């Protein structure tokens, strides 16, 4: 996939459209990572703005159905976190050395080769910059999942793809230039 094609399609990632080729490009392209960070923030601004402006639904029953669906989705998400090993989709939490929760992630089915990982970081310490690296490890080996950029509050939402043929058990976050300085881990 060319950079131009990936750039054009970056907004698709806001809609949870898994596209392995696009995600693979984003993983190695700093410009696309920054644009995706900005897109995430624009998406959040629009949603916040929408909450104050959204027109009433034509039919109250539809709002009711959506609310019920949202409650079911929230329950399903909670269940996925509670029973991480028993379902295909599971999650993990990232904490600092002091035990402060700074990130949560869910992993789900991507395609036959990859699993998707959606990370929500909150209040990561930005004393040494706003760029971070997420790592994944299994017995004796590790890979760099990807880089991500947080906003001024240390927060962001980002998506990655991981090889699906391995059993990732451990995740941690470091600064880009100091891979041994672990900021947070599972």
């Amino acid at each position, binding site marked *: 996939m060319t950079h131009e094609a990936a*750039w*054009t*399609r*970056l*907004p*698709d990632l*806001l809609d949870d459209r898994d596209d392995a080729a696009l995600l693979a490009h984003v993983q190695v392209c700093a410009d696309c990572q*920054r*644009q995706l960070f*900005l*897109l995430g*923030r*624009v*998406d959040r*601004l*629009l*949603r*916040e*703005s*929408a909450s104050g*402006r*959204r*027109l009433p639904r034509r039919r109250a029953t539809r709002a009711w159905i959506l609310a019920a669906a949202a409650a079911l989705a929230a329950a399903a998400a909670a269940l996925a976190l509670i029973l991480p090993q028993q379902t295909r989709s599971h999650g993990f939490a990232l904490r600092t050395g002091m035990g402060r929760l700074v990130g949560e992630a869910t992993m789900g089915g991507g395609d036959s080769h990859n699993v998707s990982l959606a990370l929500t970081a909150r209040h990561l310490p930005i004393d040494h910059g706003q760029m971070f690296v997420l790592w994944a490890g299994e017995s004796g080996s590790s890979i760099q999942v990807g880089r991500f950029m947080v906003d001024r509050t240390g927060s962001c939402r980002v998506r990655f793809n991981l090889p699906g043929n391995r059993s990732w058990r451990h995740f941690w976050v470091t600064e880009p230039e100091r891979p041994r300085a672990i900021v947070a881990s599972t």
Partner: protein
Amino acid sequence: MKAQPQNTRAGRPSEVSAATADVELLQAIAAGSEPAFAELRGRYRAAVARVCATVGDAEREDCEQEVFARVWRKAALFDPTRGSAAAWLLTVARRTASNFHASRSRTPTPSSDEPAAGATDPADVDAFWLDAALVRLSEQERTVIELAYYRDLSEQAIASQLHVPLGSVKSWKRRGLNRLATLLGEELA
């Protein structure tokens, strides 16, 4: 009597377009550029109207005019190292609206010559900025994004409502969101 851009204050020739950053517009306005003033006013009209809506229908229009009159007079006081253009403009708008409220209650508040951008809530600045940024999109891009976010319509539903192919909706939405992200990047730079 409200200050308005005067021909006698015509500044150096400047090329102003939708791509010109807000900071550059304010700097051009400080130098007397009427095209820059018109562009900025077009971008922030809706955002300022939202702030002035708090003063009531009778004075709302006066409030909006007074905000832009102040922008014209005080643009030279804008310091980009102290905050973003959107934050400064929001402060001007709020202070103007506040003065309208105060004059109604006959307890005028002192008006500073230099609005400080740092005192505003970042979330409010973001919302103020978003109103202006949406104006900078093409009509198709803005319409699709507003229908998607403010009416919560799917792309297919938007295509049906606008009587256009689904591919056009996808394309306008992608372009619009990418454009907003790029503008936000300029704002944060």
